[in-house]
């Protein structure tokens, strides 16, 4: 009942006039995004989160080896994230090493940046695959409906809520028979372990959209099913997909960190935030910073992604507020 009220009041993807030509639809679509942008900008927490998120990405991309920051880097060796220098092990915080160094004397400022590249890249790659699978599976189930939909959703129900870590670990083991876990096997493992939610979201959206008048009108004038799907349904799921990026990202980044932290993820000496934290675990009683700094980086990224997702949700699709 409450849901019904919200659905009729929803401002998204349901233009009341359906007789306008296709060119008009394009204009309306862009104004939807402009509206959303204006709403997003007004949300201060979301804007701050977005700025911090971008700053983290810039830091990760810019620091390792791209240019010398005056006063901080004195030689190339300092910004090589894998350069071992035992005389510098656990050097403490200083201008040379703003984030201190680890056991092997590797500069953590550079290493956290490189690790961030891997963590964020895995995050976005897995999120992208999750969304692709989600769109295919969800739109298939939602669009065809009937028995197929029922069966596919029962299958999802069966998989839903299974402990994802064992399955992710087994998948990485399958994909890396010689024991060294690669970037792509992590991406695939995390995707397999967490594609269910996005499939559900897409299916729900498609089913709601299918009942809209403009879809009926398109059917009435004889549009083929692929045209309805490609022209009318999928573009209108874009909003929830944009939100879903930032809903899935934290889970994937945390999943990568968990796997790497227990030593079953990215292999050393390749850095990821999880594997740096794992390096820090052996001496955290004396040098907690080696563990705390990458953990804080993960926490900040996850926090930002959560705020961005909240902001996008308020801006794009107020209905789904309670599903997070």
């Amino acid at each position, binding site marked *: 009942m409450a849901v019904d009220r919200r659905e009729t009041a929803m401002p998204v993807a349901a233009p009341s006039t359906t007789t306008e030509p296709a060119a008009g639809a394009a204009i309306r679509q862009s104004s939807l995004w402009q509206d959303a942008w204006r709403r997003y900008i007004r949300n201060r927490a979301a804007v701050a989160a977005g700025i911090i998120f971008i700053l983290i990405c810039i830091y990760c991309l810019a620091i390792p080896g791209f240019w010398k920051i005056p006063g901080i880097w004195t030689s190339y060796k300092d910004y090589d994230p894998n350069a071992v220098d035992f005389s510098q092990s656990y050097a403490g915080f200083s201008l040379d090493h703003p984030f201190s160094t680890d056991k092997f004397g590797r500069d953590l400022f550079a290493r956290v940046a490189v690790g961030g590249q891997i963590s964020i890249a895995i995050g976005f790659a897995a999120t992208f695959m999750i969304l692709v699978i989600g769109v295919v599976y969800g739109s298939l189930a939602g669009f065809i409906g009937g028995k197929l939909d029922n069966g596919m959703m029962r299958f999802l129900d*069966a998989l839903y809520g*299974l402990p994802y870590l064992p399955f992710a670990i087994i998948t990485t083991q*399958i994909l890396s028979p010689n024991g060294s876990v690669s970037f792509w096997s992590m991406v695939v493992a995390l995707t397999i372990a967490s594609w269910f939610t996005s499939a559900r979201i897409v299916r729900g959206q498609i089913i709601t959209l299918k009942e809209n008048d403009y879809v009926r009108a398109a059917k009435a004038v004889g549009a083929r099913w692929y045209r309805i799907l490609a022209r009318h349904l999928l573009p209108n799921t874009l909003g929830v997909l944009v939100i879903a990026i930032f809903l899935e990202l934290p889970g994937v980044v945390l999943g990568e960190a968990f796997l790497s932290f227990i030593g079953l993820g990215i292999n050393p000496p390749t850095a990821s935030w999880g594997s740096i934290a794992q390096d820090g675990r052996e001496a*955290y009683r004396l040098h907690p910073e080696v*563990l705390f700094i990458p953990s804080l980086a993960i926490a900040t990224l996850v926090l930002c992604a959560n705020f961005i997702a909240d902001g996008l949700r308020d801006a794009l699709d107020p209905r789904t507020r309670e599903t997070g």
Partner: protein
Amino acid sequence: MATFIIRRVVWTIPVILLVIFMTFIMMKQIGGNPFRHTERNVPPAIQANLDRKFHLDKPWYTQYVYYVKDVFTFDLGPSMSQRTRTVNDIVKDGFPKSLKLGILAFLWAVVIGIPLGALAALKPNSIFDYMAMFFSTIGFALPSFFVATLLIYYVALKTGLVPTNGWPEGFFQFDNRIILPSFALGLFPMAYFARLVRGSMLETMQQDYVRTAKAKGLPYKRVVGLHVLRNSMIPAVTATAPLLGLIITGTFIIEIIFSIPGIGRYFVNSVFNRDFSVVMGITVLTSVIIIIANLFVDIMYGVLDPRTREVR
């Protein structure tokens, strides 16, 4: 109601079979014969005997049937790296400890998370509300290994009030070693519950029947206690099953950090030792637990909200 429960119980059987099947296929994919990659060559005759003993000479679907039969008779097979122990022994040893850790973490979540969310919802946009939601947001974002090491570093090491690791042996044995691990594991569900209960209470309080209850002059306590709280607990009950999955995932990390000999730690060690019968056994076990928990949650949901019975 009876048909609903029966239909729901019968439905779990194919789900369990499917999950066992998936685990089985994944294990086949990992491949490797536990007897073949040893240093010495196993003579063909012995190899054939071993294959026959473990049904490896049969086609995969027959092996699957054997495995399902074993699982349903609670026999998870021998461990490959620990020759004297079976997977059952390992589960018997580790599972009670993990179970206790999980229950305690869940208790933290219920005892702190639900009241926090409820109080925040009763005074929306107050300072308490903001603090509760800030706490919940932080609890959402911090990785559990970070929480655990923070607690060890600042609580156990700096104050020395509690030990940094270890776990009481018996299931009903409690001492100060249980506090930190269960809190570290319970922080995420706590934050989750707080947020969920707050949202659902705010929504319930706008319902017509709450307004009616207020209008007919029921005292505030009675409105909240009888009408709002009971109805806003339903999402919390539904969220229990996915949370259980997260708690089980969390035990893997918490057990390693606090050196608790539970199944999570055995699982990770077995992956390192490529002891795949243990890996498979623990995966199947945890999955079946989640499926059964889902079953209970659905039945509870049917009891709490009769409308859901007809839909299914």
